[in-house]
């Protein structure tokens, strides 16, 4: 099965992309390296959201909370405890996974819009705690000047670290999507009743999906801390969650790498449109409207679907 997933062409493309990304800091200025690191982190976050949104069909309306939770977990472990940084980096995503499990235990009883709205409310509870608990989380100021390990402190090393972790995470998620678990997960999306009828424990699969998506969102959170050196409650504010859904929609949510592309477009647009005008969200809003009217399957989904349906199959379209 592994061999079927990685055709020679796919491996070649992946190797070229990785090589270009690895060589990029050699010829780009610090600002662009930072921007690319931000794109990678946001892309990982959007891809982890798409794991449950696109492949699981769950209305994950408040994914950012797992991202922020991972970021805060790492920050608090680095600043308030003396534990080794490596352990903190491993433990923080696990905290997000546990949060995913806990919120999931309450939300998976519901479906569709009820699920999503309940998730927004529970996530907002976590946000409200971080926003108000000045003595512990720094409240609405957040925490700045986080002691990042020396090895990762420089912006290029933060970039390379992000690149390696994002690549590894994407590989893992790709394997998960194409594993028997991933297939059942997509089956639940398409027809939960039938899955239940053939003996699949739908709730347990959805819970596992929540935990996995939470874990990778937590990984993205730790990377954000590494790149940015600070955390603040906006990381788990609901508007970010909806922006993530836009990224998935923009790139195409039935394609594995769609959200990555969507994140790249949004982050780049925000950075450069933001230079020219303070009305960046107006631009984003209009782009989103046009997208929903004319391109509901996303850029990558559209390109792949129109050009080569077979290729879409290979990239992981359902």
């Amino acid at each position: 099965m592994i061999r079927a997933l990685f055709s020679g062409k796919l491996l070649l493309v992946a190797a070229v992309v990785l090589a270009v990304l690895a060589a990029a800091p050699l010829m780009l200025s610090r600002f662009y390296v930072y921007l690319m690191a931000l794109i990678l982190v946001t892309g990982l976050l959007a891809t982890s959201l798409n794991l449950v949104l696109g492949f699981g069909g769950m209305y994950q309306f408040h994914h950012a909370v797992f991202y922020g939770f991972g970021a805060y977990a790492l920050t608090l472990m680095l600043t308030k405890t003396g534990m080794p940084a490596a352990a903190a980096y491993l433990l923080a995503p696990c905290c997000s996974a546990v949060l995913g499990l806990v919120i999931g235990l309450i939300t998976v009883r519901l479906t569709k819009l009820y699920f999503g709205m309940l998730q927004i409310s529970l996530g907002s509870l976590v946000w409200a705690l971080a926003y108000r608990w000045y003595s512990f989380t720094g409240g609405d100021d957040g925490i700045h000047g986080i002691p990042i390990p020396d090895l990762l402190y420089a912006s290029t090393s933060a970039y390379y670290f992000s690149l390696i972790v994002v690549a590894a995470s994407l590989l893992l998620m790709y394997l998960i999507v194409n594993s028997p678990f991933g297939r059942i997960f997509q089956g639940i999306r398409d027809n939960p009743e039938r899955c239940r009828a053939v003996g699949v424990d739908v709730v347990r699969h959805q819970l596992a999906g929540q935990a996995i998506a939470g874990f990778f969102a937590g990984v993205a959170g730790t990377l954000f801390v590494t790149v940015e050196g600070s955390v603040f409650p906006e990381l788990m504010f609901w508007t970010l969650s909806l922006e993530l859904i836009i990224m998935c929609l923009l790139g195409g949510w039935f394609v594995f790498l769609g959200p990555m592309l969507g994140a790249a477009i949004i982050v780049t647009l925000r950075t450069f449109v933001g230079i020219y005008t303070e009305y960046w969200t107006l631009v984003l809003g209009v782009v989103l409207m046009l997208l929903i009217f004319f391109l509901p399957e996303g850029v990558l989904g559209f390109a792949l679907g129109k050009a080569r349906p077979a290729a879409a199959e290979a990239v992981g379209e359902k």
Partner: protein
Amino acid sequence: MEFASNITAAALFQQVLVGLSRTTILFIVSSGLSLVLGVLRIPNVAHGSLYMIGAFLTYSIATAAGSGAFGFAVALLLAPLGVALLSFAAERGLFCHLYEREHLMLLLFTFSMTLVFNDLVKLVWGSDYRSLTAPGFLQGSFSISGLPFPRYNLFLLVVGPLVAFGLWYLTNRTKIGKIARAAAVDREMVGAVGINVSWVFAATFVIGCYLAGLGGALVAPTQNITQGMDHTIIIEAFLIVIIGGLGNIWGALLGALIFGLTDSLGILIWPQFAIVFPYVAVVIVLLFRPKGLLKSTW
């Protein structure tokens, strides 16, 4: 942290009244959201932006018409209508072409409207905050066993039940209300008996958004009118609608009561974390009744 050390009966009573006047605003806004959710099945994220626009419009109209009682009355009348007009244009121009799409797309579309509306507010009113003082006879406060209670809050306590009655009358006693409730249950059947469902949807959407504007107009004298006031109200309204039962207006009333009272009593008990109390109440309600307290129209 002072933990519930000096709560007197008078302070408790005062906070309950404050909570009830907060409930009024929450109910007006979330009943509009609930109406749209129930009939059109759209989680309208732009509801909060319309509330904000209502508040800003109230400020502008009241200032333009002279800040006295007359100006405020005119603003209270016109600002929600302006919001209704805006929502009508959005519905007929954009929204009505998308009803066949799934919920997620509709939600995202309303989010895109939020992004546009918020920047339009920034364009028109700038990013400074505004504050509006209530007309003379609603200013000041009177005392309840020694503790002050703002007169404007009393005004809100009068307006709340009036709006609730108006909504009850509209949904239960008028033809459009009955048609809308029927469309909420079975839109094909309503279409089959020869009613133009599209216009029923438009009317419901506009009424729902009018309520958002009315909430914004009523809240304008009580707080700073700022960018970002939409963010908190929309989450609160969503929570209220969920714990009440999607699409059930009386559920919205019940939810607003729970939310408003836990919020105001939380301030009394543990000020720093007052913001957390309503959320905890929501979680507790949903643990026992995951689909809300009252019957949903879904």
